[in-house]
């Protein structure tokens, strides 16, 4: 039995000299005669000669375990009714990998029965390949032997995720994928399969001149221990977005599907389990910004639009108060009634304010009071605006 990992390319060590050096063209000639060098470019280290795997190597979850099973008749007798069976024993199950279960009628001396088995590895930990051979000798004696080949399946990738909740109902997923194998890994596909509630946009390419370019540049592979960050933007589907209360608490976002390739196209594929996130709690009343200018003039009024959503289970009667801060001055009447707000409904609110201080200013000082429960909700640091003096902006 031999594991069939992909063959490797033979590399040679070029030693060259110049014509005027002592050995003349001897070294160069030696390299030309070496069958493993690339003809015409002998100095190129990477040759074309394939060499068989030199050791069992590592096998990782998601890769395909291939193995050559050869039953060779070393004796000088013909044996009959040979049955070769290859099973893979994992910690949870036993799989039959033999292509055929039919017995071979006879095996002459110095002949062999060959089989190549493949199995996509789906479990981590110890695997044991059990090869069992039964046959009948010439004397009619039934014989049986078996062999065990043990190997460990390791984890190839380390995946870490992080969620960011945007002001809008979008969710950003940042996934860090680390190659924890010992060889470079070409990431063929890393995609997020969203759950039914979301649409996903991959943010791993940059459009430049009509062509989408990977944010990872020309480096299409991950070196051992390298980590890559993938970013996805998830938008709730329309039908779910409208019902503000639906996306609440723990929700299933989707799962990552990762396909990679290593040496000579050895392929591996993994999926993460369902990624879950804790939807941010908004309290009873959620205030989100709909519009706000990014840059405003000093001491000039500007407008913002807020959206106020009732996330609670009861109807609220809200009063809006606006408190000035050192820099932010609200325009309009503080303490106005916003009226009744039913659960899961929202209202839009246009407000005007100005800043008396230059620089990046934080919009703060909104207070909502539910008159039913006499409960006040404070909203500070809702957003930030850049305040510039009007001369600068005009010039």
């Amino acid at each position, binding site marked *: *039995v031999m594991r069939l990992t992909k063959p490797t390319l033979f590399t040679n060590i070029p030693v060259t000299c110049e014509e005027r050096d002592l050995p003349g063209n001897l070294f160069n000639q030696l390299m030309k005669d070496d069958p493993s060098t690339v003809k015409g470019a002998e100095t190129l280290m990477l040759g074309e000669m394939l060499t068989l795997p030199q050791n069992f190597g590592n096998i990782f979850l998601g890769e395909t375990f291939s193995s050559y099973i050869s039953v060779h008749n070393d004796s000088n007798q013909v044996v009959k009714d040979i049955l070769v069976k290859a099973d893979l024993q994992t910690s949870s199950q036993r799989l039959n990998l033999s292509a055929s279960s039919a017995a071979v009628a006879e095996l002459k001396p110095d002949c062999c029965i060959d089989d190549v088995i493949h199995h996509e590895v789906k479990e981590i930990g110890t695997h044991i390949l059990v090869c069992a051979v039964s046959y009948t000798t010439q004397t009619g004696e039934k014989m049986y032997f078996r062999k*065990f080949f043990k190997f460990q399946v390791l984890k190839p990738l380390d995946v870490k995720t992080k969620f960011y909740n945007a002001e809008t109902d979008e969710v950003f997923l940042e996934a860090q994928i680390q190659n924890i194998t010992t060889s470079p890994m070409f990431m063929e596909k890393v995609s997020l399969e969203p759950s039914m509630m979301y649409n996903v946009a991959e943010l791993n390419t940059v459009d430049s001149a009509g062509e989408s370019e990977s944010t990872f540049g020309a480096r299409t592979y991950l070196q051992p221990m390298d980590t890559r960050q993938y970013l996805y933007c998830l938008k709730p589907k329309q039908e779910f977005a409208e019902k503000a209360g639906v996306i609440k608490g723990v929700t299933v976002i989707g799962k990552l599907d990762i396909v990679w390739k290593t040496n000579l*196209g050895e392929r591996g594929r993994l999926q993460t389990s369902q990624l879950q996130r804790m939807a941010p709690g908004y309290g009873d009343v959620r205030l989100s910004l709909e519009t706000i200018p990014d840059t405003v003039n000093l001491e000039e009024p500007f407008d913002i639009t807020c959206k106020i959503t009732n996330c609670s289970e009861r109807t609220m009667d809200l009063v809006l108060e606006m408190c000035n801060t050192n820099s932010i001055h609200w325009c309009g009447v503080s303490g106005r009634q916003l009226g009744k707000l039913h659960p899961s409904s929202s209202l839009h609110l246009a407000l005007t304010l100005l800043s008396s201080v230059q620089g990046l200013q934080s919009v703060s000082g909104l207070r909502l009071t539910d008159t039913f429960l006499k409960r006040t909700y404070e909203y500070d640091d809702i957003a930030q605006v850049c305040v510039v003096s009007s001369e600068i902006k005009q010039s």
Partner: protein
Amino acid sequence: SNAKDAKSASGEDDNRDIVQQKTQEEILFHEETIDLGGDEFESEGNETVSEDSNNFVDKLNEQMMESVIISDSANNSEDDTGELGCLQEIVDQMEAKDNQKTQTEVDKEEFLSNESETEHEETPKDISEIGTDDQASLKEDSIQEAVKEEPKVGNNVPVETKNKNNVDESTPEDQMLSPSTTKPSSEAEPIPVCTIFSQANNASSQPQLFLPDGFEPQMVKSPSFSSIIETPVKYNPQVVQPSPSLSKFFGDTVNTNTLASDFFDSFTTSNFISVSNPNASSSVPEQMSSSLSNGGDGSSSNPTFPVQNGRPEAGGSPSSLEISQSPKPFSQIQAVFAGSDDPFATALNMSELDRRNDAWIPSEETRNVLISVATQQYSTVFIDKENLTMPGLKFDNIQGDAVKDLMLRFLGEQAAVKRQVLNANSVEQSFVGLKQLISSKNWRAAVDLCGRLLTAHGQGYKKSGLPASHTTDSLQLWFVRLALLVKLDLFQNAEMEFEPFGNLDQPDLYYEYYPNVYPGRKGSMVPFSMRILHAELPQYLGNPQESLDRLHSMKIICTKILENLEQGLAEDGSMTNITQENRQASVQLWRSRLGRVMYSMANCLLMMKDYVLAVDAYHSVIKYYPQQEPQLLSGIGRIFLQIGDIKTAEKYFQDVEKVTHKLDGLQSQIMVLMNRAFLHLGQNNFAEAHRFFTEILRIDSSNAVANNNAAVCLLYLGKLKDSLRQLEGMVQQDPQHYLHESVLFNLTTMYELESSRSMQKKQALLEAVAVKEGDSFNTQCLKLG
């Protein structure tokens, strides 16, 4: 066997426990079908196994489970059973229905696997053994040497004792070294004297060629000539007592122009040694420069002649080397300028070539030293010892023939006796012999011979750290020796011997440092290829960053030289008139050298697995070697294949097809087919890959790569026998070419897979190797253990 179980189950016990239980159940479940050998046997197996596996565990990291073959052996299976624990019980329960056959089979397999395991372990051991052996011998020798050399250290008075040592060491070599010249001189003669005289003779023959006695001034321009030196030289024959060999040399040199020019270089050298610096081989730099102040003034150097007569042996070994070596480049040059017998023209062309090839830009520090040497010829120049290059052999010899050793072990003494390879003793002790050894792939012997020649040059064993004088030839010898060490994968040894050379920029490695030996000659004595070698070496020792640093500084100098040439200056930036033709040739040379540096960089980056940069570097190599574009593009494609980026690889292969589309010819056709085959490999389509490899064989049936690769594909297709047939056929067809490491490795791997009786077949391979291969053969690929 429980204890053993515990031992071998070193790591993830938890995991295994689960597995054990599971399998236990499983196995119990399958109980009725199990028919293992007797239980006594079982436990025996366990014993050996657990020990082996323990060793193994130490060797391999935890991820590496077993060796090549998951292990075609009962061993591991037994191991497993041991760990499964339960099997024991089962076996106990089993009626011990011993099947003779199974047992013997298992027996054999076990034997085999033990062997294959020990093989792995032995490799490093062997190396360390060699190491210690060397050290041991080093010590011994060093003691002897120390005794010999004690008087020499520090003072130059007892020169004679030292010289005698030199004579002793170099006597046999000297004879062999200059076969064309010194053959007649018998051993009775003090050979060094003879060689010195021969140089003197050459010197004296020089004026004969040029007839006018004192016409040096005309030749000042040419770097190899110098009036300062020539003047004293001419007197040499008058002062020197003619020795028996003298007339012969005379005759020789007079008879042919070739010889005269041949000895041209060595003639100047010998001058230096005999006149300007009688203590050449012990040349402590301070001494040298002080003696320069005495003897440098050519015409007033009469007082030194008695000295020269008194101690003519001083320069014996180096100069004799020179004689034998110089014919090589000279004859080449003469072949180029075959039309002209005019020695002037030859000399001029020579200097042109010299300048072009030797050009190098020293560091600021070195440059200052060189300038001070040039300007203060007559006063003493003190140079720090650290700035001097004092190389010496670091280990005695690595002669040995691993093939023969294996034959002794496996095929017996009788077979081993038949193995005959050239060794350092069986060839001429000269460059001719050296080349012979190299081309017959007896690199170990060649390294040894280099060592001997260097010893004759005063840079032998244990001479490291002692002052030495350098010549073109000594450096060439070093280059060959070090290059061969690298070729033999003896990187550590190469590094050790490279160490005294520092960064190859020490002042005494420049011609300017020896104004009297190499009058007017400029540049570095270090061959460019040696710089490359020096730069490449650290990457093989796990320090690729250092390699890159060295390569980058080489690149800077190459670029600077090209810049200088473009600006109408000489290579080193000096104002020298160079004809358009020569400039062109020089630009060409330096461009190709720059390309070579880039090549090394690319290779180094590839080794570092920095594929992006490596690909960039290979792209830039294409600029310097446009004729290699298809090969390089294919190479880049293969890099992407290796990463697993099949799409990009395909793109490159398509580019290759575009490029080769214009040129037709067998080679490009093969290249395209080869690439297609590789692409199919990358897509896991071994059948298609095999088809393309076979197609190449239809065009070029002797294509080793296609042959080998097709065989590999066959194995992956489950056709072990066919695969073996193909490889065996190939090796039999042309063993001269196909007994290659990689082919043999594949072959032995398949033998191991095929049968537990692979030993015989491997030994047959060994016999084939013994007939065809030299001592540099890497026996590891035979996996004979």
